[in-house]
């Protein structure tokens, strides 16, 4: 992948995430967190972080926590921008190569920015036998993009997912966090048309 400098990335978001984690690492050597590791309950968010970040690894930030950290960063940025990953590598010592290995293995990490609206079409078995492919094709043609792509105006991304677990309502499409059950090619088109109108 060619390196594209991304100028408008707000690096402070990741700094804040890492600050919080590092702070938690310091807290994690305190008696309070030592207790927390043994299961004592505490409502302190720092302790909760320390438990989450270092719980099993003896209070140190390590590669063990890479996936939850990446998930948090993606939550903040919408995807995993390269400058942000470089910063994580610098501050944690986790090699960028190791991070990229993990990121490219899992379907739900994105290295490219995503559209404002995320359209996910299920290609699970129940959806497949109930005509899910027709819904997928109709979404692709309505948005003019393929699986995993984003529209030029950055309004829509579409992806297919293995199973959303709503098989009894197949075929299923999820737009942002709204589930649409018993879809047909035509209804899928209508849902997207509605959104396009709302976006002007």
């Amino acid at each position, binding site marked *: 992948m060619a390196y594209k400098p991304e100028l408008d990335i707000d690096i402070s978001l990741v700094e804040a995430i890492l600050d919080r984690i590092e702070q938690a690492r310091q807290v994690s050597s305190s008696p309070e967190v030592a207790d927390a590791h043994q299961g004592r309950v505490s409502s302190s968010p720092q302790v909760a972080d320390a438990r989450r970040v270092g719980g099993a690894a003896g209070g140190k930030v390590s590669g063990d926590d890479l996936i939850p950290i990446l998930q948090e960063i993606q939550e903040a940025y919408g995807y995993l921008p390269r400058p942000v990953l470089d910063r994580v590598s610098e501050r944690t010592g986790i090699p960028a190569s190791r991070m990229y290995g993990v990121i490219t293995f899992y379907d739900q990490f994105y290295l490219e920015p995503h559209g404002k609206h995320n359209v996910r079409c299920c290609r699970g078995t129940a959806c497949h036998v109930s005509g899910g492919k027709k819904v997928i094709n109709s979404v692709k043609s309505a948005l003019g993009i393929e699986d995993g792509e984003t529209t030029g105006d950055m309004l829509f991304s579409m992806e297919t997912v293995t199973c959303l677990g709503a*098989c009894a309502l197949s075929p299923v499409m999820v737009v942002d966090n709204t589930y649409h059950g018993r879809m047909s090619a035509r209804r899928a088109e209508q849902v997207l048309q509605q959104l396009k109108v709302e976006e002007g």
Partner: protein
Amino acid sequence: MADKKINSITDLQQLSQTLLDKQKEYKIRVLICMTGCRALGAKDISTKFKQSLKEQKLDNQVIVIETGCIGICAKAPTILIEPFDFLYGSVTPDDVDEIIETTIKNSKPVEKLAVSQNGEKTANINEVEFYKKQKKIVLEKCGRIDPTKIEDAIATGGYLTAVEMLNGKKPQDIIDEMTASGLRGRGGAGFPAGVKWNFCRQAQGDEKYLICNADEGDPGAFMDRAILEGDPHKVIEGMIIAAYAIGATQGFIYVRAEYPIAVEHINIALDQARQLGLLGENIAGSDFNFDIEVRMGAGAFVCGEETALIASLEGQRGMPRPRPPFPAHKGYLDKPTNINNVETLANVPLIIKNGAKWYSDIGTEKSKGTKIFALAGKVNNTGLVEVPMGTTLRQIIFDIGGGVSDGRNFKAAQIGGPSGGCIPAEFLDHEIDYDSVEQLGAIMGSGGLIVTDDRTCMVDLARYFLEFVQSESCGKCTPCRVGTKKMLEILNNICDGNAKPGDLNELEELANTIKKASLCGLGQTAPNPVLSTLRHFRDEYTAHVEQHKCPAGICKELTTFVISAEKCKACGKCIDVCPTEAITGEKKTPHVIIQEKCVTCGACRDVCPFDAVDTE
């Protein structure tokens, strides 16, 4: 509000009683499914109910409860009204006032919302065929309680069994009870749970881990999602018992990120259990410490395999490793680790509470207890079904499931997802358990059961699964990485009309090699969908290869649609729906497909009410 820490079993019993009394202050409970049914507008119904009850000053007698899955998803959105046990389906907010008037004020059923079966409307849930033949033990509370309130779980006896165990029961006795119950792992392979626990208990190690595998990746399976969404406390209670039995102090729930409601509910449940002292240090005043952390998957099917799951928990690419050493000896962070599936853990409190004898009386000789199936595909009553092991497919699909949808003919039941296979009509009366399913070339898997009809192409279905495992293969071992790719190539050729003689033999040979040589369960079972369809539906493969025809009319290159002049009533529906304007015809004259324009999408066939569109 229950906020005082529980320090003894008496505390818990008292709290349970107080909460139960409090529940009785409400004469009527309106239970609204807020999980799957949310996709079809359940939230609006709930809002309308609360508003109308308040306006009519009934909100001190009637409580609206947002529940987990009630089961019969086909009738979504569904609501259930206690104490009458009236079940209403396909409810809209406009129906709410009538329900309040008829049922809440006058205790009578609203006939038009009752579920209909064999042409008759039945309002009482206990008389609906879909529920009558089920045995709900794991799903007993699912759809009957508010999963976001620990009070509901405790009022119905939740955590009592676990707390009893922590107060004096020997861990080895619990394990022996589990082994005697005959519970087999519900994740798919069916290994005896008690034996697995014992391995971990016996393993040397200062720290041990317990993992709940909620990475329900099989497309077509959603029972674990339903349990976590509808009764998360049952899973937590099962985990406490399991952790105590094997000697673990830290637990994980590894859950798919595709299940946002399950993630939300389990996190709420964990917080509530911690606040009450049911998780953490000195659980309920005992000297046992245990806590649970939720980890979300990042979209990799192979992470359902236990060694891949552990790699993922450790922040690695989710790739499996050879076993032995088994996780019981060398698991998470190389420490002894026990991994059980959600449904397995949800069975634990029931077995310990009621005893191994009670449990082993349910089911068949070698498969005990019940099994939850996710019934979907071409069946009338799609939904969540819990039946004793040994129930026949006919009972599940026809008695409970109400038969094949649109009045079409049953072709096969696909069981076990991408690791499973298709069971044809001739075996509808076989009793279903771990061993019988395997003899038929499928596997129990996690319990996805997809019904197919005469318009499902079995070659296309096999290709679908191959496509799936091919894209999910982690790439570590060659048989799976390269072998599934070659199999998929052959299947694509068959479906596209480019098959060569000998392709079927090559497919079989490859399949058997991949089965034997792959590293993990994903590869070892990847050929099953192909092998089972070759075994039971070889004719369909030969039709594709030799006659270049797809009998089901699914494979586009091998299909020509024609309209039967005798059956066509010239209604024009197909003309409206055709995306390429390939159908011509006037009123009262049978319609005709212009083959040059037809893209064989099948939209006309789907929409035709007279079954007039056929394959040539």
